[in-house]
């Protein structure tokens, strides 16, 4: 059953929320960013040698580690010519006092499913090239996301790190008959790089990439994922509250602008985008 996470006492939230709103009216943020500005983003790939692909991405002090393990398996019966991938996410207890040990809770499941939607609907992977023997043998990619340090907004760095890990992921090569070709490996075929931007809403004001203090004081927030042609491929309103219809257009426009900046950096570090 879904129940609300324990939050700070609501009067402290109210005071902070008013402060953030007043700053936004002057075009400012509590951490001296402008409203539509991400925190500093760093991306590092191949950080775990035993994984087929891995990436460590930080946005401010929020840090996400994604690793990919490749196995062989059977395709889905209705898609015999396509490889398989699955996304899992864990909010590690070392990342925040609000995360607890145990199997992924609804927040972890939501994160994994949103990243899955970005990759799947953004057509990030050429799944047909992951097929070895049609109907019998395909590559199976396990994309596992770990939140290492949580200072708000785990969605955007998770999408970035999953994509960076995928773009640098190598797999053993197999012949069309399913024989392992020793000593040779191939890269995961990337078709597109979908990326996301999270926007926070307070009354009629918007901000991007909320830090934890902001996240706790927002009216609501929304994750927007766009592909390289700026098609909307996934959206998730991920907290309670109202979004006025009149803000929707600016939300998509601001997301587009921010994502194009992240994309430029992604291309520089990872080489695709």
């Amino acid at each position, binding site marked *: *059953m879904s*129940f609300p996470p324990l939050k700070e006492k*609501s009067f402290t939230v109210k005071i902070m929320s008013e402060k953030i709103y007043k700053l936004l009216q002057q075009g400012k943020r509590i951490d001296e960013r402008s409203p539509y500005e991400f925190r500093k983003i760093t991306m590092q790939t191949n950080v775990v040698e035993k994984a087929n692909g891995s990436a460590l991405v930080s946005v401010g002090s929020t840090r996400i580690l994604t690793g990919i393990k490749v196995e062989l398996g059977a395709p889905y019966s209705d898609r015999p010519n396509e490889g398989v991938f699955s996304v899992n996410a864990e909010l590690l207890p070392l990342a925040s006092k609000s995360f607890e040990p145990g199997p992924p809770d609804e927040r972890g499941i939501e994160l*994994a499913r949103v990243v899955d939607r970005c990759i799947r609907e953004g057509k990030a992977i050429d799944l047909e090239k992951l097929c070895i023997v049609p109907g019998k043998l395909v590559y199976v990619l396990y994309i596992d996301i770990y939140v290492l340090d949580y200072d708000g907004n785990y969605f955007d760095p998770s999408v970035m790190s999953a994509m960076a890990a995928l773009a640098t992921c190598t797999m053993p090569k197999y012949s069309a008959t399913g024989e392992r070709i020793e000593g040779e490996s191939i890269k995961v075929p990337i078709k597109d790089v979908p990326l996301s931007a999270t926007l926070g809403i307070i009354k009629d004001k918007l901000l991007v990439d909320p830090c934890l203090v902001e996240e706790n004081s927002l009216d609501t927030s929304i994750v927007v994922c766009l*592909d390289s042609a700026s098609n909307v*491929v996934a959206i*998730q309103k991920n907290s309670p509250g109202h*979004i*006025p219809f009149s803000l929707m257009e600016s939300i998509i426009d601001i997301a587009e602008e921010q994502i194009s900046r992240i994309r430029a950096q992604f291309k520089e570090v990872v080489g695709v985008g």
Partner: protein
Amino acid sequence: MTQVMKPKLIDENGIRLDGRGPTDLRPLKMEVSVLEKSDGSAYVELGKTKVYAAVYGPKEAHPKHLAIPDRAILNCRYHMTSFSTDERKTLGMTRREIELSKVIREALESVVFLEEFPRSAIDVFVEVVQADGGTRTAGLTAASLALADAGIPMRELIAAVAVGKVDGTIILDPSDIEDKYGEADMPIGIAPESNTIVLLQLNGKMTKDEFKRGLELARMGIQKIYQAQREALRRKYGVSTTEV
């Protein structure tokens, strides 16, 4: 094992597989107070999609450490029966059901006056009896009716509907087959009086323009659902539609 061929979803006259036009809703049926033991309940039928919702509470929060001193907690469970889908759904909560429980709960939290009931809990259960597309939106529509039926104070009702994109056309209220073979599915929960969005998800590919048109179509489609919700409440609570 062969790849399933995508059927043609819209013919050259713009007519969908079930005979609807792009902006038509499926036949709609709503009723409140359908389950006796709950404090409030509702049944919503949208074509072949059939959903029950029930509300228990406000009651003492359990376990007690979950209680919040200045408001009620709202718990929500969205669940599908094992026989609601083409292939039998495994028992227990799937990852999809856990995610949908969360987004439905968050939508409801936006309109319920939780601060009226400190330290207590309100439980909302959504049970999908048959799934033919649009189950989370039908579930949210039913849940908001069930809350109203339970007499729980709300800022307003929530009406929800999905829009989709099939064969390049933006459509209202996609059925299961349109969702499966279509290009995009976008469930939207709307608070009609304040004209705001309380639930929004998108799965699929839409251009910015299509997304904008999808939002508009949802805003239009919601009116019929909102009307039916108010009628269902009036039928039960004895005010005829013409009087109001």
